[in-house]
């Protein structure tokens, strides 16, 4: 499903953020990327939807070498992924509902089906009833849950989430992880980056430990 081999990444004018990262995530696996601030977690995750391209090595997603994709092919790659960004990237001039429904606009659903999916996604993260609010009217944790709802609304086969619980207290964080676990149950591949060692303690799932851009065994 997702396969990194010998991946290195160096930002223009910067140091080597990732070095020789290799791992394979099978379909339906559940994995955490863990590491300190600046370890390269976000960079690693950004290589999967080709937001960044590797400086060396190859990244395969569903067998596609995404580092070599043409610009015009990127939208079709990204539609099959559910992405939660570390800075959430919500639209603050749209309603909560419109934010969730955004990915449905370029897929091929009837308006009725689109609405059903949007409401189901909001329900899953406990935001049903806040559809008409503006994201600025949500608390930090609620915004994070909205970002998750948007990522899952299209029922992607792969979920990639960058610090989806950073703004949540331990209990809320656990509730969010349950959502990801539920997707995992139905066969979705899940990859979550976090700095929170406590969060993953005692959880099933693989752990990819990053330190200074290198994967620790």
């Amino acid at each position, binding site marked *: 499903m997702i396969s990194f081999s010998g991946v290195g990444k160096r930002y223009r004018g910067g140091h080597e953020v990732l070095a020789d990262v290799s791992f394979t995530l099978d379909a339906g696996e559940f994995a955490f990327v863990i590491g300190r601030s600046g370890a390269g977690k976000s960079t690693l995750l950004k290589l999967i*939807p080709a*937001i960044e391209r590797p400086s060396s090595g190859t990244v395969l997603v569903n067998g596609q070498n995404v580092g070599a994709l043409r610009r*015009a092919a*990127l*939208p*079709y*790659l*990204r*539609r099959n992924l559910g*992405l939660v*960004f570390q800075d959430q*990237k*919500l*639209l*603050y*001039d*749209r309603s909560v509902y419109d934010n969730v429904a*955004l*990915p449905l*606009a*370029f897929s*091929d659903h009837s308006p009725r089906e689109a609405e059903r999916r949007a409401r189901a996604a909001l329900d899953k993260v406990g935001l049903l009833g806040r559809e008409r609010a503006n994201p600025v009217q949500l608390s930090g944790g609620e915004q994070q849950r909205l970002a998750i709802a*948007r990522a899952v609304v299209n029922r992607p086969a792969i979920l990639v989430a960058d610090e989806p619980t950073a703004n949540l207290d331990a209990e809320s964080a656990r509730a969010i992880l349950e959502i990801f676990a539920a997707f995992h149950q139905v066969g979705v591949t899940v990859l979550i980056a976090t700095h929170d060692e406590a969060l993953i303690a005692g959880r099933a799932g693989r752990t990819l430990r990053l330190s200074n851009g290198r994967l620790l065994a």
Partner: protein
Amino acid sequence: MRTWLRHHRQAVALALGKLLAQKAAALLNALVIGVALALPAGGYALLANLLAVTQRFAPEAQLSLFLRTEATKADADAIADRLKADARVATTRFVSRDAALKSLRATEGLAEVVAALGKNPLPDAFVVHARDPSPEALDALARDLRGLGGVAHVQVDSAWARRLAAIAATGRIATGVLAALLAVGLIAVTFNTIRLQILTHAEEITVSRLIGATDGYIARPFYYFGSLQGVAGGVVALAIVWLGLAALNLGVQDLADSFGSTFRLAFPGAADASSLVGFAGLLGWLGSYLSVSVHLRKIS
């Protein structure tokens, strides 16, 4: 196909929605484009009027053919036949010496002169309209007519023809300058508006791209927005031109009255008006196309 239609419908709705959501802003934009467009459109309307006016003087691109005072009726008839046979001659009009005196008497300021004249000193004459109003053709025709028997003098009004040609040339240059301004101005306005539209929607564009929107999907509402804005600007320009002409007509009325004329500046017809609006829409689309090409890729 159904998806394609739905996406276009959505894009139109989005563009229209944006225009209507900010009524004041949309009105302002239309006003800006309208004012810019009114310059050449108004100029064009004035030119069209000017050309209409000068066309009334076009008959002056003519020859006056004076007969000798001793010429007989037979001489005059021969000359009339000769003129009728000439392919270069459009129309001829015979002005008898009596008619000429009468019209001289009617000319303001000359009544006393005429009254003081003992007998009619004026000759019979033909007023000849040439088909080809160019100065060269008139001169050639005059040379030939001068050789006819009974003709005392041929006077070419080619000075007028030369003036007309110069006016027409001036008009053509002005139209060219104005048309260029029209196109550049409208494209610039749209380009700029769409640039700022893209900047204000940078966040949305970035996010849409990250979650799988194609560039075509992102660009579409901007194209519609630019075209709609162009059309709105064209309508405003029409209104400005209309109001401007109406205002000018207040003055023209007095002016024309003093000449005893009923002349008024004409308003652009339905065909001109709709092609102005259509052209504005087209230029709006072009401006948005250029702007999207340049600015969309700048947003990572």
